[in-house]
Protein backbone atom coordinates (compact mmCIF):
# COMPACT_ATOMS: atom_id res chain seq x y z
CA UNK A 1 0.00 0.00 0.00
CA UNK A 2 1.56 3.26 -1.13
CA UNK A 3 1.38 6.13 1.33
CA UNK A 4 0.62 8.80 -1.22
CA UNK A 5 0.04 12.36 -0.05
CA UNK A 6 -1.80 15.33 -1.52
CA UNK A 7 0.50 18.12 -2.69
CA UNK A 8 -1.44 20.55 -0.51
CA UNK A 9 -4.36 20.47 1.86
CA UNK A 10 -8.01 20.77 0.80
CA UNK A 11 -11.01 21.70 2.95
CA UNK A 12 -14.79 21.67 2.64
CA UNK A 13 -16.14 25.12 3.55
CA UNK A 14 -19.70 24.78 2.27
CA UNK A 15 -22.10 21.88 1.86
CA UNK A 16 -25.74 21.89 0.79
CA UNK A 17 -28.41 19.64 -0.63
CA UNK A 18 -31.89 19.72 -2.08
CA UNK A 19 -34.56 17.85 -0.25
CA UNK A 20 -34.40 14.20 -1.36
CA UNK A 21 -37.64 12.64 -2.59
CA UNK A 22 -39.91 12.20 -5.60
CA UNK A 23 -40.61 15.53 -7.29
CA UNK A 24 -42.68 15.25 -10.47
CA UNK A 25 -42.40 18.99 -11.09
CA UNK A 26 -38.60 19.30 -10.82
CA UNK A 27 -35.78 18.39 -13.19
CA UNK A 28 -32.22 17.70 -12.06
CA UNK A 29 -31.24 21.26 -12.87
CA UNK A 30 -33.98 22.61 -10.55
CA UNK A 31 -32.74 20.32 -7.80
CA UNK A 32 -29.15 21.42 -8.42
CA UNK A 33 -30.15 25.08 -8.06
CA UNK A 34 -31.70 24.19 -4.68
CA UNK A 35 -28.54 22.39 -3.62
CA UNK A 36 -26.32 25.24 -4.81
CA UNK A 37 -28.36 27.83 -2.87
CA UNK A 38 -28.31 25.60 0.20
CA UNK A 39 -24.51 25.33 -0.11
CA UNK A 40 -24.18 29.14 -0.40
CA UNK A 41 -26.16 29.61 2.81
CA UNK A 42 -23.88 27.14 4.60
CA UNK A 43 -20.75 29.25 4.00
CA UNK A 44 -20.15 31.20 7.23
CA UNK A 45 -18.32 34.23 5.84
CA UNK A 46 -18.27 36.20 2.61
CA UNK A 47 -18.50 34.02 -0.50
CA UNK A 48 -18.89 35.18 -4.09
CA UNK A 49 -19.93 32.32 -6.41
CA UNK A 50 -17.95 34.06 -9.18
CA UNK A 51 -14.79 32.93 -7.37
CA UNK A 52 -15.49 29.29 -8.24
CA UNK A 53 -12.89 28.17 -10.78
CA UNK A 54 -13.86 24.63 -11.76
CA UNK A 55 -16.82 22.26 -11.48
CA UNK A 56 -17.15 18.47 -11.08
CA UNK A 57 -20.62 16.95 -11.28
CA UNK A 58 -21.38 13.35 -10.33
CA UNK A 59 -24.24 11.86 -12.31
CA UNK A 60 -25.00 8.26 -13.17
CA UNK A 61 -27.54 8.38 -15.95
CA UNK A 62 -29.37 11.57 -16.79
CA UNK A 63 -29.12 10.08 -20.31
CA UNK A 64 -31.60 7.31 -19.52
CA UNK A 65 -33.51 8.95 -16.65
CA UNK A 66 -34.10 12.33 -18.32
CA UNK A 67 -32.94 11.84 -21.94
CA UNK A 68 -30.29 14.44 -21.16
CA UNK A 69 -26.56 13.89 -21.67
CA UNK A 70 -23.75 16.43 -21.29
CA UNK A 71 -25.17 17.58 -17.98
CA UNK A 72 -22.13 19.26 -16.40
CA UNK A 73 -22.22 22.47 -18.47
CA UNK A 74 -25.97 22.71 -17.85
CA UNK A 75 -25.40 22.60 -14.09
CA UNK A 76 -22.64 25.22 -14.47
CA UNK A 77 -25.04 27.37 -16.48
CA UNK A 78 -27.98 27.24 -14.07
CA UNK A 79 -25.64 28.24 -11.24
CA UNK A 80 -24.36 31.14 -13.36
CA UNK A 81 -20.91 29.60 -13.63
CA UNK A 82 -20.31 29.30 -17.39
CA UNK A 83 -17.65 29.56 -18.89
CA UNK A 84 -15.76 27.72 -16.13
CA UNK A 85 -14.71 24.16 -16.99
CA UNK A 86 -17.40 21.65 -15.99
CA UNK A 87 -16.84 17.89 -15.96
CA UNK A 88 -19.34 15.09 -15.45
CA UNK A 89 -18.12 12.04 -13.53
CA UNK A 90 -19.88 8.70 -13.99
CA UNK A 91 -19.01 5.81 -11.67
CA UNK A 92 -22.53 4.51 -11.08
CA UNK A 93 -23.66 5.13 -7.46
CA UNK A 94 -20.13 6.34 -6.60
CA UNK A 95 -20.29 9.15 -9.19
CA UNK A 96 -20.30 12.08 -6.79
CA UNK A 97 -17.92 10.48 -4.28
CA UNK A 98 -15.50 10.27 -7.19
CA UNK A 99 -16.42 13.83 -8.26
CA UNK A 100 -15.43 14.92 -4.75
CA UNK A 101 -12.10 13.14 -5.16
CA UNK A 102 -11.55 14.83 -8.53
CA UNK A 103 -12.24 18.22 -6.94
CA UNK A 104 -9.72 17.44 -4.22
CA UNK A 105 -7.10 16.36 -6.77
CA UNK A 106 -7.70 19.50 -8.85
CA UNK A 107 -7.03 21.76 -5.85
CA UNK A 108 -4.18 19.63 -4.47
CA UNK A 109 -2.48 19.84 -7.87
CA UNK A 110 -2.25 23.60 -7.45
CA UNK A 111 -4.18 24.33 -10.65
CA UNK A 112 -7.27 25.64 -8.83
CA UNK A 113 -8.00 27.11 -5.39
CA UNK A 114 -11.81 26.92 -5.38
CA UNK A 115 -13.87 24.05 -6.79
CA UNK A 116 -17.57 23.25 -6.85
CA UNK A 117 -18.44 19.57 -6.50
CA UNK A 118 -21.98 18.50 -7.25
CA UNK A 119 -24.11 15.42 -7.58
CA UNK A 120 -27.44 15.06 -9.38
CA UNK A 121 -29.93 12.33 -10.17
CA UNK A 122 -33.56 12.60 -11.24
CA UNK A 123 -34.86 9.03 -11.18
CA UNK A 124 -38.62 9.14 -10.70
CA UNK A 125 -39.65 10.07 -14.26
CA UNK A 126 -39.43 6.40 -15.25
CA UNK A 127 -41.67 3.52 -14.14
CA UNK A 128 -40.02 1.19 -11.60
CA UNK A 129 -39.23 -1.59 -14.10
CA UNK A 130 -37.35 0.87 -16.31
CA UNK A 131 -35.50 2.29 -13.29
CA UNK A 132 -34.47 -1.29 -12.44
CA UNK A 133 -33.25 -1.81 -16.01
CA UNK A 134 -31.37 1.51 -15.98
CA UNK A 135 -29.64 0.68 -12.69
CA UNK A 136 -28.78 -2.77 -14.07
CA UNK A 137 -26.73 -0.98 -16.73
CA UNK A 138 -24.24 -0.27 -13.92
CA UNK A 139 -23.58 -4.03 -13.78
CA UNK A 140 -21.89 -6.07 -16.51
CA UNK A 141 -24.59 -6.13 -19.16
CA UNK A 142 -22.87 -8.92 -21.11
CA UNK A 143 -22.19 -11.42 -18.34
CA UNK A 144 -24.21 -10.46 -15.23
CA UNK A 145 -27.50 -9.02 -16.46
CA UNK A 146 -28.29 -12.00 -18.78
CA UNK A 147 -28.22 -14.22 -15.67
CA UNK A 148 -31.33 -12.36 -14.51
CA UNK A 149 -29.50 -10.41 -11.79
CA UNK A 150 -30.93 -7.11 -10.56
CA UNK A 151 -29.14 -4.79 -8.11
CA UNK A 152 -31.15 -6.05 -5.14
CA UNK A 153 -30.30 -9.52 -6.51
CA UNK A 154 -26.54 -8.92 -6.42
CA UNK A 155 -26.60 -7.69 -2.84
CA UNK A 156 -28.96 -10.54 -1.94
CA UNK A 157 -26.37 -12.97 -3.32
CA UNK A 158 -23.72 -11.26 -1.17
CA UNK A 159 -26.09 -11.68 1.78
CA UNK A 160 -26.54 -15.41 1.00
CA UNK A 161 -22.78 -15.95 1.03
CA UNK A 162 -22.46 -13.87 4.23
CA UNK A 163 -25.22 -15.83 5.99
CA UNK A 164 -23.63 -19.11 4.91
CA UNK A 165 -20.20 -18.07 6.19
CA UNK A 166 -21.15 -16.27 9.42
CA UNK A 167 -24.55 -17.62 10.43
CA UNK A 168 -26.41 -14.33 10.10
CA UNK A 169 -30.20 -14.63 9.76
CA UNK A 170 -32.35 -12.41 7.47
CA UNK A 171 -33.88 -10.85 10.62
CA UNK A 172 -30.49 -9.35 11.52
CA UNK A 173 -30.69 -7.15 8.43
CA UNK A 174 -33.77 -5.45 9.85
CA UNK A 175 -31.66 -3.83 12.60
CA UNK A 176 -29.99 -1.68 9.95
CA UNK A 177 -33.28 -0.54 8.43
CA UNK A 178 -34.79 0.26 11.84
CA UNK A 179 -31.76 2.30 12.92
CA UNK A 180 -31.45 4.24 9.66
CA UNK A 181 -35.14 5.15 9.67
CA UNK A 182 -34.77 6.33 13.29
CA UNK A 183 -31.96 8.65 12.14
CA UNK A 184 -33.74 9.72 8.96
CA UNK A 185 -36.82 10.71 10.97
CA UNK A 186 -34.64 13.51 12.40
CA UNK A 187 -33.38 14.67 8.99
CA UNK A 188 -35.70 17.22 7.34
CA UNK A 189 -34.13 16.50 3.93
CA UNK A 190 -34.85 12.75 4.07
CA UNK A 191 -37.19 11.12 1.56
CA UNK A 192 -38.64 8.62 4.05
CA UNK A 193 -37.96 10.52 7.26
CA UNK A 194 -40.18 8.37 9.44
CA UNK A 195 -39.37 5.60 11.90
CA UNK A 196 -40.59 2.10 11.05
CA UNK A 197 -42.88 1.97 14.15
CA UNK A 198 -44.43 5.28 13.04
CA UNK A 199 -44.69 3.96 9.49
CA UNK A 200 -46.59 0.94 10.83
CA UNK A 201 -48.89 3.17 12.93
CA UNK A 202 -49.58 5.22 9.81
CA UNK A 203 -50.67 2.09 7.97
CA UNK A 204 -52.97 1.14 10.86
CA UNK A 205 -54.46 4.65 11.04
CA UNK A 206 -55.00 4.69 7.29
CA UNK A 207 -56.81 1.31 7.39
CA UNK A 208 -59.07 2.56 10.19
CA UNK A 209 -59.86 5.76 8.32
CA UNK A 210 -60.77 3.87 5.15
CA UNK A 211 -62.91 1.39 7.08
CA UNK A 212 -60.67 -1.47 5.96
CA UNK A 213 -59.70 -4.44 8.17
CA UNK A 214 -57.23 -3.12 10.75
CA UNK A 215 -53.90 -5.01 10.64
CA UNK A 216 -52.93 -6.71 13.89
CA UNK A 217 -49.15 -6.28 13.92
CA UNK A 218 -47.93 -6.65 17.50
CA UNK A 219 -44.90 -4.42 16.91
CA UNK A 220 -42.62 -3.16 14.13
CA UNK A 221 -40.73 -6.47 14.04
CA UNK A 222 -44.01 -8.23 13.36
CA UNK A 223 -44.69 -5.62 10.67
CA UNK A 224 -41.33 -6.27 8.99
CA UNK A 225 -42.04 -10.02 8.97
CA UNK A 226 -45.39 -9.52 7.21
CA UNK A 227 -44.93 -10.38 3.52
CA UNK A 228 -47.72 -7.99 2.53
CA UNK A 229 -46.28 -5.04 4.47
CA UNK A 230 -42.66 -5.86 3.66
CA UNK A 231 -42.67 -7.93 0.46
CA UNK A 232 -39.72 -9.96 -0.78
CA UNK A 233 -37.67 -8.22 -3.49
CA UNK A 234 -34.74 -10.63 -3.85
CA UNK A 235 -34.40 -13.17 -1.06
CA UNK A 236 -33.30 -12.50 1.65
CA UNK A 237 -33.83 -8.80 0.89
CA UNK A 238 -37.30 -7.37 1.39
CA UNK A 239 -38.67 -3.92 0.57
CA UNK A 240 -37.33 -2.40 3.81
CA UNK A 241 -33.85 -3.76 3.05
CA UNK A 242 -33.66 -1.61 -0.09
CA UNK A 243 -32.95 2.08 -0.57
CA UNK A 244 -35.67 3.96 -2.50
CA UNK A 245 -35.79 5.52 -5.96
CA UNK A 246 -34.97 9.18 -5.38
CA UNK A 247 -34.60 12.60 -6.97
CA UNK A 248 -31.97 14.83 -5.42
CA UNK A 249 -28.93 17.06 -5.79
CA UNK A 250 -25.95 18.08 -3.68
CA UNK A 251 -23.36 20.88 -3.84
CA UNK A 252 -20.03 21.12 -1.97
CA UNK A 253 -17.56 23.98 -1.90
CA UNK A 254 -13.91 22.89 -1.76
CA UNK A 255 -11.00 25.27 -1.29
CA UNK A 256 -7.27 25.02 -0.72
CA UNK A 257 -6.33 24.82 2.94
CA UNK A 258 -4.42 28.14 2.81
CA UNK A 259 -7.56 30.17 2.04
CA UNK A 260 -10.11 28.12 4.02
CA UNK A 261 -10.31 30.67 6.84
CA UNK A 262 -11.56 33.31 4.39
CA UNK A 263 -14.78 31.26 4.20
CA UNK A 264 -15.23 29.91 7.71
CA UNK A 265 -13.55 29.56 11.08
CA UNK A 266 -14.53 25.87 11.04
CA UNK A 267 -13.37 24.28 7.80
CA UNK A 268 -13.55 20.51 7.51
CA UNK A 269 -10.23 19.31 6.17
CA UNK A 270 -10.08 16.30 3.87
CA UNK A 271 -6.99 14.48 5.04
CA UNK A 272 -7.46 11.12 3.35
CA UNK A 273 -8.78 10.03 -0.02
CA UNK A 274 -8.72 6.53 -1.45
CA UNK A 275 -10.29 4.86 -4.42
CA UNK A 276 -10.16 1.40 -5.97
CA UNK A 277 -11.88 -0.68 -8.64
CA UNK A 278 -12.75 -4.36 -8.82
CA UNK A 279 -13.83 -7.13 -11.17
CA UNK A 280 -17.41 -8.40 -11.59
CA UNK A 281 -18.96 -9.91 -8.46
CA UNK A 282 -18.72 -13.49 -9.79
CA UNK A 283 -14.98 -13.09 -10.44
CA UNK A 284 -14.11 -12.30 -6.80
CA UNK A 285 -12.41 -14.67 -4.39
CA UNK A 286 -14.54 -13.48 -1.46
CA UNK A 287 -18.26 -12.81 -1.93
CA UNK A 288 -18.77 -11.57 1.64
CA UNK A 289 -16.60 -8.45 1.39
CA UNK A 290 -15.94 -5.68 -1.14
CA UNK A 291 -12.21 -5.60 -1.90
CA UNK A 292 -12.34 -2.11 -3.45
CA UNK A 293 -13.71 -0.80 -0.12
CA UNK A 294 -10.92 -2.43 1.83
CA UNK A 295 -8.28 -0.99 -0.51
CA UNK A 296 -9.85 2.49 -0.73
CA UNK A 297 -10.14 2.75 3.04
CA UNK A 298 -6.59 1.51 3.62
CA UNK A 299 -5.34 4.14 1.17
CA UNK A 300 -7.40 6.88 2.83
CA UNK A 301 -6.32 5.87 6.36
CA UNK A 302 -2.65 5.74 5.30
CA UNK A 303 -2.86 9.18 3.69
CA UNK A 304 -4.59 10.58 6.78
CA UNK A 305 -2.31 8.81 9.24
CA UNK A 306 -5.29 7.48 11.20
CA UNK A 307 -6.86 4.08 11.89
CA UNK A 308 -10.42 2.80 11.70
CA UNK A 309 -10.72 3.10 15.48
CA UNK A 310 -10.05 6.86 15.31
CA UNK A 311 -13.14 7.54 13.18
CA UNK A 312 -15.95 9.05 15.26
CA UNK A 313 -18.82 9.19 12.70
CA UNK A 314 -19.22 7.59 9.27
CA UNK A 315 -21.65 7.71 6.39
CA UNK A 316 -21.43 4.39 4.56
CA UNK A 317 -23.05 3.17 1.36
CA UNK A 318 -26.19 1.38 2.59
CA UNK A 319 -27.92 0.92 -0.77
CA UNK A 320 -29.13 -2.31 0.88
CA UNK A 321 -29.04 -3.29 4.55
CA UNK A 322 -26.44 -6.00 3.90
CA UNK A 323 -24.25 -3.37 2.20
CA UNK A 324 -23.99 -1.40 5.47
CA UNK A 325 -23.01 -4.51 7.42
CA UNK A 326 -20.32 -5.45 4.90
CA UNK A 327 -19.12 -1.82 4.70
CA UNK A 328 -18.56 -1.57 8.44
CA UNK A 329 -16.33 -4.64 8.20
CA UNK A 330 -14.49 -3.55 5.03
CA UNK A 331 -13.72 -0.20 6.68
CA UNK A 332 -12.16 -2.04 9.63
CA UNK A 333 -14.73 -0.86 12.19
CA UNK A 334 -15.60 -4.46 13.01
CA UNK A 335 -13.96 -7.82 12.29
CA UNK A 336 -15.30 -9.87 9.36
CA UNK A 337 -18.50 -11.55 10.52
CA UNK A 338 -19.04 -9.10 13.40
CA UNK A 339 -20.80 -6.32 11.45
CA UNK A 340 -24.28 -7.78 11.85
CA UNK A 341 -23.70 -8.28 15.58
CA UNK A 342 -22.61 -4.65 15.94
CA UNK A 343 -25.86 -3.55 14.27
CA UNK A 344 -27.85 -5.84 16.58
CA UNK A 345 -26.02 -4.53 19.67
CA UNK A 346 -26.74 -0.87 18.71
CA UNK A 347 -23.02 -0.12 18.41
CA UNK A 348 -23.81 1.71 15.15
CA UNK A 349 -26.73 3.70 16.61
CA UNK A 350 -26.46 7.47 16.99
CA UNK A 351 -25.56 7.09 20.68
CA UNK A 352 -23.43 3.98 20.11
CA UNK A 353 -19.65 3.74 20.03
CA UNK A 354 -19.53 3.96 16.22
CA UNK A 355 -22.45 5.97 14.84
CA UNK A 356 -23.14 4.96 11.23
CA UNK A 357 -25.41 6.83 8.82
CA UNK A 358 -26.74 9.47 11.20
CA UNK A 359 -28.33 11.13 8.15
CA UNK A 360 -30.64 8.14 7.74
CA UNK A 361 -28.30 6.76 5.08
CA UNK A 362 -29.35 5.98 1.56
CA UNK A 363 -32.02 3.74 3.08
CA UNK A 364 -34.10 6.51 4.69
CA UNK A 365 -32.61 9.76 3.39
CA UNK A 366 -32.91 8.45 -0.18
CA UNK A 367 -30.53 7.31 -2.91
CA UNK A 368 -30.41 9.66 -5.92
CA UNK A 369 -27.52 7.54 -7.15
CA UNK A 370 -25.27 10.18 -8.71
CA UNK A 371 -25.79 12.55 -5.75
CA UNK A 372 -25.47 10.06 -2.90
CA UNK A 373 -21.68 10.22 -2.41
CA UNK A 374 -21.57 14.01 -2.17
CA UNK A 375 -24.66 13.79 0.07
CA UNK A 376 -22.65 11.76 2.56
CA UNK A 377 -20.15 14.64 2.78
CA UNK A 378 -23.01 17.03 3.64
CA UNK A 379 -23.88 14.95 6.72
CA UNK A 380 -20.25 14.62 7.82
CA UNK A 381 -19.80 18.41 7.38
CA UNK A 382 -22.84 19.04 9.57
CA UNK A 383 -22.02 16.47 12.24
CA UNK A 384 -18.40 17.57 12.59
CA UNK A 385 -19.42 21.23 12.94
CA UNK A 386 -22.14 20.43 15.48
CA UNK A 387 -24.94 21.53 13.13
CA UNK A 388 -26.89 18.27 12.81
CA UNK A 389 -29.69 19.52 15.09
CA UNK A 390 -31.77 16.74 16.64
CA UNK A 391 -29.61 13.99 15.19
CA UNK A 392 -26.33 15.53 16.38
CA UNK A 393 -23.91 12.98 17.80
CA UNK A 394 -22.82 14.03 21.29
CA UNK A 395 -19.27 15.15 22.04
CA UNK A 396 -16.33 16.24 19.94
CA UNK A 397 -16.03 14.81 16.43
CA UNK A 398 -12.45 15.35 15.30
CA UNK A 399 -12.55 12.67 12.56
CA UNK A 400 -15.27 11.51 10.16
CA UNK A 401 -15.45 9.24 7.12
CA UNK A 402 -17.55 8.68 4.01
CA UNK A 403 -17.67 5.45 2.00
CA UNK A 404 -19.34 5.48 -1.42
CA UNK A 405 -19.73 2.37 -3.59
CA UNK A 406 -20.49 2.10 -7.30
CA UNK A 407 -22.34 -0.98 -8.51
CA UNK A 408 -21.53 -4.05 -6.47
CA UNK A 409 -18.11 -2.63 -5.61
CA UNK A 410 -16.66 -2.12 -9.08
CA UNK A 411 -15.84 1.30 -7.65
CA UNK A 412 -15.32 2.38 -4.05
CA UNK A 413 -14.16 5.78 -2.84
CA UNK A 414 -13.43 6.66 0.80
CA UNK A 415 -12.70 10.03 2.38
CA UNK A 416 -11.43 10.93 5.85
CA UNK A 417 -12.37 14.35 7.26
CA UNK A 418 -10.76 16.28 10.11
CA UNK A 419 -11.90 19.18 12.23
CA UNK A 420 -9.03 21.20 13.71
CA UNK A 421 -10.96 24.06 15.34
Amino acid at each position, binding site marked *: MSKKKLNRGVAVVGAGMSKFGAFSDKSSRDLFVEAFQSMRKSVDKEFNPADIETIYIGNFSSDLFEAQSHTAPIMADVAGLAPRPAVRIEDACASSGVALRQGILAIASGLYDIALVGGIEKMTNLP*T*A*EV*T*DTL*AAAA*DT*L*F*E*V*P*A*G*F*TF*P*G*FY*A*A*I*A*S*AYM*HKYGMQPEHLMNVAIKNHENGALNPNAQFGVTIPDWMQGRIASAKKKGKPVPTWSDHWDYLHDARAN*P*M*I*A*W*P*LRLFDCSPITDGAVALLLVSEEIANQFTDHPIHIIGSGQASDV*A*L*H*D*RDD*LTSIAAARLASQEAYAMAGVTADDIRVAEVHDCFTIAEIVATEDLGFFAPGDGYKAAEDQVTARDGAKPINTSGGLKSKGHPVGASGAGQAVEIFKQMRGLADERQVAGDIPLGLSHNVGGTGGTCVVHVYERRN
Partner: protein
Amino acid sequence: MTATKSTTTKRAFTAASFDQYLNEKKLMGSHCANCDANFLPPRAICPDCYDDQLEWVELDGKAKLAAFTSIYIAPTAMINEGYGRDKPYVAGVVELDDGVKISAQILGLDAANPEEIKIGTPLQAEFIERGEGDEKRTFLAFRAK
Protein backbone atom coordinates in the same frame (compact mmCIF):
# COMPACT_ATOMS: atom_id res chain seq x y z
CA MET B 1 -13.83 -14.52 -44.62
CA THR B 2 -16.43 -17.18 -45.43
CA ALA B 3 -18.88 -18.52 -42.86
CA THR B 4 -17.35 -22.01 -42.92
CA LYS B 5 -13.84 -20.67 -42.43
CA SER B 6 -14.81 -18.78 -39.29
CA THR B 7 -15.39 -22.08 -37.46
CA THR B 8 -11.83 -23.20 -38.08
CA THR B 9 -10.16 -19.82 -37.57
CA LYS B 10 -9.26 -18.96 -33.98
CA ARG B 11 -12.04 -16.78 -32.67
CA ALA B 12 -11.36 -13.46 -31.01
CA PHE B 13 -11.80 -13.35 -27.22
CA THR B 14 -15.00 -11.36 -27.39
CA ALA B 15 -18.45 -11.69 -25.90
CA ALA B 16 -19.74 -12.35 -29.41
CA SER B 17 -17.43 -15.38 -29.72
CA PHE B 18 -18.54 -16.60 -26.28
CA ASP B 19 -22.21 -16.30 -27.37
CA GLN B 20 -21.43 -18.04 -30.67
CA TYR B 21 -19.98 -20.98 -28.70
CA LEU B 22 -23.08 -21.00 -26.46
CA ASN B 23 -25.17 -21.34 -29.63
CA GLU B 24 -23.05 -24.41 -30.39
CA LYS B 25 -23.78 -25.73 -26.86
CA LYS B 26 -20.20 -25.20 -25.76
CA LEU B 27 -19.07 -23.43 -22.59
CA MET B 28 -15.76 -21.87 -23.56
CA GLY B 29 -13.30 -19.91 -21.44
CA SER B 30 -9.76 -18.74 -22.12
CA HIS B 31 -6.58 -20.27 -20.75
CA CYS B 32 -3.18 -18.76 -19.94
CA ALA B 33 -0.46 -21.39 -20.40
CA ASN B 34 2.09 -19.33 -18.41
CA CYS B 35 -0.11 -19.20 -15.32
CA ASP B 36 -2.06 -22.42 -15.98
CA ALA B 37 -5.17 -20.35 -15.25
CA ASN B 38 -8.66 -20.42 -16.80
CA PHE B 39 -10.83 -17.37 -17.30
CA LEU B 40 -14.60 -17.21 -17.57
CA PRO B 41 -15.91 -14.99 -19.11
CA PRO B 42 -13.00 -15.39 -21.53
CA ARG B 43 -10.31 -12.73 -21.17
CA ALA B 44 -8.07 -11.55 -24.01
CA ILE B 45 -5.26 -10.55 -21.62
CA CYS B 46 -4.09 -12.50 -18.58
CA PRO B 47 -4.44 -10.19 -15.52
CA ASP B 48 -1.54 -11.96 -13.77
CA CYS B 49 1.20 -12.07 -16.43
CA TYR B 50 -0.37 -9.77 -19.09
CA ASP B 51 0.25 -12.36 -21.80
CA ASP B 52 -2.11 -11.92 -24.76
CA GLN B 53 -1.48 -15.32 -26.40
CA LEU B 54 -4.31 -17.09 -24.60
CA GLU B 55 -6.12 -20.19 -25.89
CA TRP B 56 -9.78 -21.16 -25.90
CA VAL B 57 -10.59 -23.97 -23.50
CA GLU B 58 -13.83 -25.92 -23.28
CA LEU B 59 -15.13 -26.27 -19.72
CA ASP B 60 -17.09 -29.34 -18.67
CA GLY B 61 -19.77 -27.32 -16.87
CA LYS B 62 -19.55 -29.20 -13.56
CA ALA B 63 -20.02 -26.66 -10.80
CA LYS B 64 -21.41 -25.81 -7.39
CA LEU B 65 -23.51 -22.94 -6.09
CA ALA B 66 -21.38 -20.20 -4.46
CA ALA B 67 -24.04 -17.51 -3.79
CA PHE B 68 -27.64 -17.02 -4.86
CA THR B 69 -30.88 -15.13 -4.58
CA SER B 70 -34.48 -15.74 -5.47
CA ILE B 71 -35.71 -12.74 -7.44
CA TYR B 72 -39.32 -11.56 -7.02
CA ILE B 73 -39.01 -8.11 -8.61
CA ALA B 74 -37.71 -9.01 -12.04
CA PRO B 75 -36.08 -6.92 -14.78
CA THR B 76 -37.99 -6.46 -18.04
CA ALA B 77 -36.15 -9.27 -19.84
CA MET B 78 -37.17 -11.80 -17.18
CA ILE B 79 -40.74 -10.44 -16.91
CA ASN B 80 -40.94 -11.20 -20.64
CA GLU B 81 -39.98 -14.79 -19.79
CA GLY B 82 -42.95 -15.01 -17.41
CA TYR B 83 -41.06 -14.41 -14.15
CA GLY B 84 -42.03 -12.02 -11.37
CA ARG B 85 -43.82 -11.73 -8.01
CA ASP B 86 -45.86 -14.93 -8.56
CA LYS B 87 -43.05 -16.85 -10.23
CA PRO B 88 -39.66 -16.01 -8.72
CA TYR B 89 -36.46 -17.42 -10.18
CA VAL B 90 -33.01 -18.17 -8.83
CA ALA B 91 -29.94 -16.24 -10.02
CA GLY B 92 -26.58 -17.24 -8.68
CA VAL B 93 -22.83 -17.12 -8.70
CA VAL B 94 -21.54 -20.52 -9.77
CA GLU B 95 -18.10 -21.96 -9.06
CA LEU B 96 -16.93 -24.39 -11.74
CA ASP B 97 -14.67 -27.33 -11.02
CA ASP B 98 -12.26 -25.71 -13.50
CA GLY B 99 -11.61 -22.99 -10.93
CA VAL B 100 -13.63 -20.16 -12.43
CA LYS B 101 -16.88 -18.45 -11.42
CA ILE B 102 -19.74 -17.02 -13.47
CA SER B 103 -23.22 -15.50 -12.99
CA ALA B 104 -26.15 -17.53 -14.28
CA GLN B 105 -29.79 -18.41 -13.81
CA ILE B 106 -30.08 -21.57 -11.70
CA LEU B 107 -32.70 -24.13 -12.70
CA GLY B 108 -34.11 -27.08 -10.82
CA LEU B 109 -34.30 -25.35 -7.41
CA ASP B 110 -37.48 -24.27 -5.59
CA ALA B 111 -37.28 -20.50 -6.02
CA ALA B 112 -40.36 -20.03 -3.83
CA ASN B 113 -38.53 -21.61 -0.87
CA PRO B 114 -35.10 -20.00 -1.00
CA GLU B 115 -34.35 -20.74 2.66
CA GLU B 116 -34.17 -24.42 1.64
CA ILE B 117 -31.53 -23.79 -1.05
CA LYS B 118 -28.00 -24.74 -0.02
CA ILE B 119 -24.76 -23.06 -1.01
CA GLY B 120 -22.54 -25.82 -2.37
CA THR B 121 -25.37 -27.54 -4.27
CA PRO B 122 -23.84 -29.46 -7.24
CA LEU B 123 -24.78 -27.98 -10.63
CA GLN B 124 -24.32 -28.75 -14.32
CA ALA B 125 -24.19 -26.17 -17.13
CA GLU B 126 -27.22 -26.10 -19.42
CA PHE B 127 -27.86 -24.09 -22.56
CA ILE B 128 -31.28 -22.45 -22.61
CA GLU B 129 -33.00 -20.46 -25.32
CA ARG B 130 -34.92 -17.26 -24.74
CA GLY B 131 -36.73 -15.00 -27.19
CA GLU B 132 -38.57 -15.70 -30.44
CA GLY B 133 -37.52 -15.68 -34.11
CA ASP B 134 -34.57 -13.40 -34.83
CA GLU B 135 -34.46 -12.45 -31.14
CA LYS B 136 -33.80 -16.05 -30.12
CA ARG B 137 -30.54 -16.40 -28.19
CA THR B 138 -28.80 -19.12 -26.24
CA PHE B 139 -28.08 -18.32 -22.59
CA LEU B 140 -25.86 -20.10 -20.10
CA ALA B 141 -27.74 -21.54 -17.14
CA PHE B 142 -26.95 -24.18 -14.52
CA ARG B 143 -29.23 -26.92 -13.25
CA ALA B 144 -29.14 -28.51 -9.81
CA LYS B 145 -28.12 -32.16 -10.07
